[in-house]
């Protein structure tokens, strides 16, 4: 019996692009799914944990999402979107649905509602760099703007729900969220036209 799965095979998978690994997942290559899991599980789990504040529930979502990748990898079109972008969006959708005890909106299919992410997140270094920039920008936001955008993103609240929770006027909430998005856009290098500065 050979010493499976083998360190060399594992390292080779870690150097491959998302698309290469997804193509191997379509062929039911378990090591390719494991490599994608190792690459993005921290990101998915951190987001689910932040939303749900429940380790067990976050782990359940994490496992279910990667199991869906395993089952439906052939539906993913690299021309239409980014895998980590899709993982982040679906994690948020499912976690907020669980948090707010409502059914999912159906935005979970790999080939629908694509997510175009201009950053390459395939390495831990690039993820850490982006993490530093986003967290730095958030820490520098005025308290009201940070609170509003966090309620929107991590608790799935609408403008009026945020206004109700914070006691602020609806117009104030809308202005704060727009301002926060502008700051974040600049922090990660997006131009006003949506490209990269």
């Amino acid at each position, binding site marked *: *019996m050979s*010493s*499976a799965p083998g360190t060399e095979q594992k390292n080779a998978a870690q150097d491959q692009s998302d698309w290469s690994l997804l193509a191997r997942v379509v062929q*039911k290559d*378990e090591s390719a*799914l*494991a490599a994608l*899991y*190792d690459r993005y*599980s*921290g*990101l998915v*789990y*951190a*987001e689910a*944990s932040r939303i749900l504040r429940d380790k067990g529930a976050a*782990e359940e979502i*994490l*496992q279910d999402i990667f*199991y869906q990748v*395993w089952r439906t990898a052939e539906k993913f079109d690299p021309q*239409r979107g*980014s895998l980590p*972008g899709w993982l982040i969006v679906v994690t*948020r959708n499912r976690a907020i649905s669980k948090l707010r005890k409502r059914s999912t909106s159906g935005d979970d299919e790999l080939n629908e*509602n*694509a*997510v*175009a*992410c*201009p950053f390459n997140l395939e390495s831990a270094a690039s*993820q*850490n760099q982006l*993490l*530093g*920039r*986003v*967290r*730095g920008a*958030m*820490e*520098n936001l005025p308290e009201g703007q940070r609170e509003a*955008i966090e309620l*929107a*993103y*991590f608790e*799935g*609240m*609408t*403008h009026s729900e*945020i206004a109700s929770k914070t006691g602020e006027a609806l117009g104030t909430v809308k202005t704060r*969220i*727009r301002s926060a*998005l502008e700051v*974040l856009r600049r922090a*990660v290098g*997006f131009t*006003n*036209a*949506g490209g990269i500065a």
Partner: protein
Amino acid sequence: MTNEHPYREEDFELYALGVLEGDELRRIETHMNSCADCSQKIAEARGRIALLAFSAEPAEPSLEVRQRLMARIRAEADPARATVTERTERAPSSFWNFAWGTLALALAIFAVYLWNSNKVLQQELDRQEAAMKTQVALTEKERAIVALFSSPKTVTVNLAAKAPNATEPGRVVYNAQQGALVYVGTLPQLAADKSYELWVIPQTGNPIPAGVFSAEPSGEAKVVLPNIPAGISPKAFAVTIEPAGGGATPTGPFAQVGATP
């Protein structure tokens, strides 16, 4: 209701963020269903909004999640095992007796082989699990160090040497909100019955221990992410010389000390 293009990038971002409601939401959804350009802009907006996920505290799942996932996909792939059905009553024949006997012996040998293989696999799994735990721990520490050094609220405090106990300075990088700290310095090696100890000196109250350490033969000394409470606003940091193993309060002389700016 008009079917006009949303005219600002932020409209797509607000939609992707999920804050729109009522007429604002219906207008953009109706338009998107018939406009390929705007569908693409929504995809790009989703990508930008998705970056907010990076503002969550870094966290790593337990190893068991990975194991359960892989077990789940393997269970799905395994074909159903054939069950051994009982032989129906029929006139015994020497041929069938021999055939079944041979099959039973082969199955017994195969069962022993599988048991042994399973034991080897389990040992390999245990070894890899231990390696992965180390790797996960390293990844968490790496993320914490990145978060410390990239935060605009992190401060650097220079510690002046206090002769005769030290002749070189030290430096502390500290973030009160994160409760994260890294110390680096150059110190002389101590006798075996002594240790250096780092302290966070708050504005009020007793000094807080922040790590017991020793200096390398080269003089290099460091403390990386000691277990200290978050939210402390220090007035100074200090390194003292304590009995081996350190203590809860400083008793020995200063080797280095520095006030926060």
